[in-house]
């Protein structure tokens, strides 16, 4: 009877509303592959995976804000910087070496800062939100850059090797990073991924999606827009801080460039590259970005040009990102359309 009308419309609706359980599986699959990597990959490849883990964690948070809530932050590198400098200050000035303490402090500090910054920023949406977050990111950057005595200026600050689970690890830097630290970061990534999956599937996540789709209607049915957005901002900042701590331990250095706005731009780049519409997309984007950048840098000094061109082509031809494009192809194969 009503078959004819069903044929046309619901497909698009259903695809949007249905949860994507494959998102979590994609992420866990990726992590599983990475868990066996130390047996097959070279130390160089493993060292490349560490920034990927750091960025992925930051992007899990970033995408709660961007993909789920619909707020594009162009200053998210601020929290990477906060995480990195927390690690640097604690290890080299206060002699705190426990990595767990570093993570907790980084999460707390970025949470607190994001509470203040977020309260000012989330009143805005769209481009205004992006510009405001950019301004705050640069505020922090110029603080790092100019206050030489506190932050080391453009030299940055050293991050000492932390203790994992209270244990000291002997051996060279590479052995430490590709061994215990690699697994530690990977497990952390898995746990934070699971937590983020729970968050996006919870009623809170539903509120955020409702705000993204139509803030006015969401408010009408009782969603506390300001609080929800602020909560999303704080959570994303905490993920950013943790990601920044991992990045800083990997390089052994916290420098102001981490908080520079082009670094925030790279985060957005990764999210869109992988596809911000899916759960695992940003992590895939981080992987492709890190590997691609490393590859292009090895063949030409003009790697920015190549990356920029990739970005332009991506935006024009593949706005759904890699995962979105794969999904669309899969849908087509399943006789969708």
């Amino acid at each position: 009877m009503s078959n004819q009308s069903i044929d046309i419309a619901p497909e698009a609706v259903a695809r949007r509303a249905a949860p994507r359980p494959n998102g979590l599986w994609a992420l866990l699959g990726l992590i599983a592959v990475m868990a066996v990597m130390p047996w097959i990959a070279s130390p160089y490849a493993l060292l490349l995976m560490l920034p990927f883990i750091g960025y992925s964690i930051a992007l899990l948070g970033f995408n709660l804000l961007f993909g789920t809530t619909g707020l594009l932050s162009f200053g998210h590198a601020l929290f990477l910087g906060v995480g990195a400098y927390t690690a640097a200050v604690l290890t080299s000035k206060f002699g705190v070496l426990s990595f767990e303490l570093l993570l907790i402090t980084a999460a707390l500090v970025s949470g607190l800062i994001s509470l203040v910054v977020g309260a000012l920023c989330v009143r805005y949406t769209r481009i205004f939100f992006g510009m405001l977050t950019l301004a705050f990111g640069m505020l922090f950057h110029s603080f790092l850059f100019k206050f030489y005595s506190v932050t080391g200026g453009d030299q940055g600050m050293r991050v000492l090797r932390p203790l994992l689970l209270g244990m000291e690890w002997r051996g060279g830097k590479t052995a430490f990073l590709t061994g215990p630290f690699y697994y530690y970061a990977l497990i952390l990534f898995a746990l934070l991924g699971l937590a983020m999956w729970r968050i996006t599937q919870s009623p809170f996540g539903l509120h955020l999606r409702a705000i993204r789709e139509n803030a006015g209607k969401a408010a009408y049915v009782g969603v506390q827009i300001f609080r929800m957005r602020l909560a999303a901002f704080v959570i994303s900042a905490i993920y950013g801080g943790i990601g920044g701590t991992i990045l800083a331990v990997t390089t052994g250095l916290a420098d102001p460039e981490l908080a520079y706005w082009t670094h925030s731009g790279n985060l957005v780049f990764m999210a869109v590259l992988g596809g911000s519409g899916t759960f695992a997309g940003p992590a895939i984007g981080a992987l492709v970005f890190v590997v691609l950048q490393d590859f292009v840098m090895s063949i030409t000094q003009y790697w920015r040009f190549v990356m920029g061109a990739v970005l332009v082509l991506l935006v024009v031809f593949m706005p759904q990102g890699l995962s979105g494009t794969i999904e669309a192809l899969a849908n087509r194969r399943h006789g969708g359309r």
Partner: protein
Amino acid sequence: MTELVDVILGGTFHAAVLFLVAAGLQLVFGVQKIVNLACGSFYALGAYFGITAVGIAIKLGMPPVLFLPVLIVAGLAIGLVGLPIERVLRTIYRRDESYQLLITFGFLLMFQDVFRFLWGATPRTMDNVYLVYGTTNFLGVRVPTYNLLVIAASLAIAVGLGLFLERTKIGRIVRATAENRDMAEGLGVNASKIFALVFTVGCMLGTVGGALVVPSGAASLDMAVELVVESFAVVVIGGLGSMRGALVGALVVGLMRAAAISLVPELEMLSVYLVVVVVLIVRPAGLFGKATA
């Protein structure tokens, strides 16, 4: 007293250049609703190309006195690079603004390496023409006459732009397109052409700004990304999309920076961002912005 005049003159000079870039940003945002992160690249492009153009002109036997007009012409000419870029941007006008930000970010990255390829990684300066117009005594402070000429040129461009938008037929069409693109097209306006025109003019404002500033300093790879955040500060303070806002915002940022440099050098950029934050808390839409956010 002389210190104060010094700060005001230095700040106004900086503001004059900043205004040009910010005006380009505002114009493009007002009509195309695109926030152009590549505006800093246009500025740097103007600076580099200005150096090359003046170098060639002097080699061809031009008297150094004529270098200011050469710079302006060079800036206008290289601004035409906006035309092909607008062709690419055209594909994404109806998309979400995150994509528009990203695509201009991509252009910014590409330009970075174009500069590195064409002009090298070391900063480039212009040979000894900066003081060709001598210095002027202004309330007891000696300033290069060139700085005053740039301030005057910038003011003239501001007035000219205002007259163009308010008084001419094309200006009215541009404003109509900015107000409502579909309606304007319904009335027979070729919006594609208007967009190409507006983007190119916006681009030229940036390149001329860069060309004008370079005799007093150097062209470097950093200037693009640094100017982006400064011009963002200008438009946020002044209000997105407002020309008067760009003028006032540029003055605020320019003077603030000059004052900070002479009083507390550490606060150079910090002070600018602090003003941005304060303005946003007190007047969320900026000083001249519309009250929507």
